[in-house]
């Protein structure tokens, strides 16, 4: 995985702000709140990815890396574990692992993008109306790879990038955390990626942890395990039970919002607001 800093990402974002009065106004107004929130956004891994059983995760105490998609392989990536930063943007799966955001050994082998890298393989494309890109259709694998490279930074740079990214898109940065699955930021995603349904995976920051080592789930890593369903709590190994927060099932047929995403958002904001 080639190293890359985030100077180019910040430079483009700042240039766009300078040329767009509404984005710049948003950035100025939200900058302080974004700076307070960003350091406290945990990394969230939701179960439900194909071929990765939640039971295997807890039996081994480890998130095993999965093979990357074609456009990631072209970028020199081989296997990765994926996290969304500060939000539970993968809409499926019944358990969320809430992890420390700044574990040094993870930061050293991780990259980030301001979108879900997997979405590039089929769920999202570039908006032709966005003036900053020439990567219009056809959206082929080499172009997806180039796009990925353009918007990829080394994870240690998140500390600098994330507050700017939040402020440049949200008048209230906490909305980044609480927006539903199908929603958009207040200001259009600066990278020009769109999905037909308006899925937040096109603008939620993702971290990719590279390498065969995967992610070991120890006491220093796990902040909380959010579990939907008592049967799954019952199945957790004893060492993980004490980290669990159980969401009660709604036995009615109506649960309009994704309860796991809602709970994770509430937890994130509570924790951020009480942080020193």
């Amino acid at each position, binding site marked *: 995985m080639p190293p890359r800093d985030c100077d180019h990402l910040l430079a483009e974002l700042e240039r766009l702000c300078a040329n767009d009065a509404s984005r710049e106004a948003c950035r100025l107004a939200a900058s302080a709140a974004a700076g307070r929130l960003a350091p406290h956004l945990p990394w969230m891994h939701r179960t439900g990815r*194909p071929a990765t059983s*939640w039971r295997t995760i807890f039996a081994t105490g480890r998130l095993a890396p999965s093979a990357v998609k074609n456009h990631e392989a072209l970028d020199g990536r081989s296997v990765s574990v994926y996290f969304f930063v500060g939000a539970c943007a993968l809409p*499926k799966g019944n358990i969320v692992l809430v992890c420390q955001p700044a574990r040094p050994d993870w930061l050293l082998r991780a990259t980030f993008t301001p979108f879900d890298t997997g979405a590039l393989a089929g769920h999202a494309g570039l908006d032709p109306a966005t003036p900053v890109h020439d990567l219009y259709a056809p959206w082929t694998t080499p172009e997806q790879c180039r796009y990925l490279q353009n918007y990829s930074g080394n994870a240690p740079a998140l500390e600098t990038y994330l507050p700017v990214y939040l402020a440049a898109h949200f008048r209230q940065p906490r909305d980044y955390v609480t927006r539903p699955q199908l929603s958009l930021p207040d200001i259009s995603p600066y990278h020009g990626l769109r999905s037909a349904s308006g899925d937040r995976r096109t603008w939620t920051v993702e971290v990719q942890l590279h390498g065969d080592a995967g992610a070991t789930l120890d006491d220093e890593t796990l902040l909380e395990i959010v579990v939907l369903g008592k049967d799954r709590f019952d199945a957790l190994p004893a060492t993980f*039970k*004490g980290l669990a927060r159980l*969401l009660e099932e709604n036995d*009615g047929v109506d649960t309009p919002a994704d309860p796991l995403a809602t709970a994770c958002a509430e937890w994130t904001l509570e924790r951020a607001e009480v942080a020193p």
Partner: protein
Amino acid sequence: MSIRTWTLANSVVVGAACPLEIDAEFSVGRAVFAANEDPASFLLQRSSDRDGTILGGDYLTSEEWAGLQDADEALSIPPRAVARPVVVWVFRSAKRDHWWTSNLAELGQLGALAHVDAPRIRGTRICLVYPAAAGTARDLWAQSSSEDAWRALLAGGRLEALRYARRAFCLAPRLYERDAAMLAVTYSLAGKHEDSEGVLAMARRSKGETFFAAILARRERLLADLQASQARPTGTVARTARSRSAFDQVALAGLREWSQNHETPST
């Protein structure tokens, strides 16, 4: 995948968002529908309109639906048409007792059972349930299982009590202090202290300090009552010779002391 209107008339239930094979004796999952005219389109149902005929939820491609099953997050059943929105209840029995037989009969009498499937996993039944018709059935079953756990404890059956307590915990539609306390006690008495502490810590994280304090108090009462029951003369409590040997006073007193000294760590 095309955006379409999902209704009970144009779709069938093909599964649920809960695992098929798991130790828990009861699971609940939201129903997954497939479109009659487009079997590659799926809906993880979360809502319905006032009439209950138009469905809402998360759309899934066939790849996503297969992936959820592959990841132990969902189970599939043969396609079933339903008259009203359903939830999926899964009953399991690792032993041959098929404890759920009377529960299914009760659901049938209540008119709450849309379909029952018997998968290849022995001792398992997958039920499509009309939850409004089922009323408080789960609550009553959970209470009954909790009472069974207590009776098993009095009789000295530690592992049997744990099994009932786990069943009560899973059956109850909410996280109750009754079930959490009983689960913590039965895990302890079965020698699974880390599980016991885990239940207490989970309860604290899930519902806060007041709830946690209530569980600790209830756990203490359970242990005290158990200790008292063992101290009474023969005949005042339904006891067996097995119970007298299983729960001697020294052991119970030690467990109470252990419990008091092992409050779950702050979260």
